[in-house]
């Protein structure tokens, strides 16, 4: 389907370019070029570049081509006067031969060149720390190997994602302000970071029984505009597997995750935005409700992380808690958001330089056309000042009358 569409659009684009080349009238050429540009905008859409497609249409087919048409009409230069003999009569065959030779070489290179189609893109693993560890008064410090990744992280707070090198690490939790050289960690465990991972290291449990759950997040774009994605972590004290369900207003029960065992993170699940009532049950048992959370507010286009944890009361009973962390999704590839983000981060300097070039071009265009007009006015003025010889000859005669 996509292939057929591509061939149709490509055929139209090539035909329009060829017609632009051969039409005698410059206005027709400009119109064919507009068709060609529209085709390229369509191909941009197929190449996941919606922003470029729209810029192509507004800037190229809109602004630039209107400028061309305007100049053609202004100058009345639809056709160049047919000259008797072209000055370079040998030019036509040589140009055609050279162009075809270039096309042959380029196509051979493209077809034989074996453009790699399978190389995946490689991204460093992204890691953040979330604190769902209840009972730590001043928060926690988290170390990956010997490097501190979070300092004084309060309950219900998380760090932002940071890129790390892939490899084996040991994650260690300390009470805030502890010295990793001297003090014993509250908890430690080895983790492995591989490329393309987006991981949240969630500290959960209580100070007496801490644990770290590694949750793999999926930050890819969600198709549904009002959608969000969440990952649930089971850190309930029963240490049993749970089912997570959403309760609708009618009291109906929609199971979101089944059989999530203790200390594990679920797969990413897509959900509609809104206020939800979330209930947790023991796995396979829909009658006993372990916990219920009303009105869990969730924003659209975010990746949420739910930690089902608990707080230990002084009398050793416990009260369940849901701790949510959310992060903005990665913008969709090629969308305005993605392009804008790149433009204002890595490409800020080129962007400003291009803006400067545009400004200089604008001034240049004004200066060029303005000077020409001034010169002509000077010429007209000079012609007006030169006394006409006929007038000068007649003047004495008239005076003599």
């Amino acid at each position, binding site marked *: 389907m996509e292939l057929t569409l591509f061939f149709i659009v490509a055929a139209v684009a090539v035909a329009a370019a060829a017609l632009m080349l051969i039409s005698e009238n410059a206005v027709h050429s400009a119109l064919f070029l507009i068709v060609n540009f529209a085709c390229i905008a369509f191909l941009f859409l197929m190449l996941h570049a919606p922003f470029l497609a729209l810029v192509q249409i507004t800037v190229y087919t809109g602004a630039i081509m209107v400028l*061309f048409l305007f100049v053609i009409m202004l*100058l009345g230069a639809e056709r160049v006067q047919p000259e008797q003999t072209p000055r*370079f009569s040998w030019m036509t065959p040589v140009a055609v031969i050279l162009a075809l030779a270039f096309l042959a070489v380029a196509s051979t290179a493209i077809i034989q060149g074996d453009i790699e189609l399978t190389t995946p893109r490689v991204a460093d693993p992204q890691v953040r720390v979330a604190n769902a560890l209840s009972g730590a008064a001043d928060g926690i410090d988290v170390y990956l190997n010997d490097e501190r990744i979070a300092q004084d992280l309060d309950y219900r707070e998380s760090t932002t994602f940071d890129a790390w090198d892939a490899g084996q690490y040991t994650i260690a939790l300390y009470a805030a302000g502890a010295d990793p050289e001297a003090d014993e960690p509250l908890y430690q465990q080895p983790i492995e970071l591989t490329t393309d991972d987006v991981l949240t290291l969630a500290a959960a449990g209580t100070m007496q029984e801490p644990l770290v759950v590694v949750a793999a997040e999926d930050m890819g774009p969600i198709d549904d505009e009002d959608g969000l994605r969440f990952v649930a972590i089971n850190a309930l004290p029963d240490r049993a597997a749970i089912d997570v369900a959403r309760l609708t207003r009618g009291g109906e029960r929609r199971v979101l995750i089944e059989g999530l065992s203790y200390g594990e993170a679920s797969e990413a699940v897509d959900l509609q935005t809104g206020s939800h009532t979330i209930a947790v049950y023991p796995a396979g048992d829909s009658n006993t409700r372990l916990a219920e959370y009303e009105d869990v507010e969730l924003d659209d286009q975010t990746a949420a992380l739910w930690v089902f944890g608990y707080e230990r009361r002084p009398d050793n009973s416990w009260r369940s808690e849901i701790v949510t962390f959310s992060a903005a999704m990665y913008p969709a590839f090629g969308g305005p958001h993605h392009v804008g983000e790149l433009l204002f981060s890595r490409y800020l300097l080129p962007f400003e330089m*291009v803006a400067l070039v545009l400004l200089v071009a604008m001034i240049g265009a004004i200066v060029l056309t303005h000077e020409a007009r001034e010169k002509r006015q000077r010429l007209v003025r000079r012609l007006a000042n030169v006394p006409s010889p006929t007038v000068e000859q007649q003047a004495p005669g008239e005076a003599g009358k």
Partner: protein
Amino acid sequence: MGTPEVAIELYVLLSAILFVLGAMGVLLRRNAILIFMSIELMLNAANLALAAFARQWGNGDGQLVVFFVMTVAAAEVAVGLALIVTIFRTRQSIDIDTLHMFKD
């Protein structure tokens, strides 16, 4: 974003064809405005290849380059058309075969 259904070679091949058509326009036509439009066609062909490779590598940098090419092309068109207007005013023609200033 899975693997593209249309092979990237096809896009690059189309871009090469359009580029050659544009180059032939520059070499064969005598109308200065048409030569200009052919240059625009060549720029667009290059843009298409850049966007195709950006898609191929899942990398936004190629698209940013396309964006910059577009802005520079807009600047170039503004100056170029101003030049053409100026030349037309002084010589009453934009046939590039007659624009040999040093010969006669």
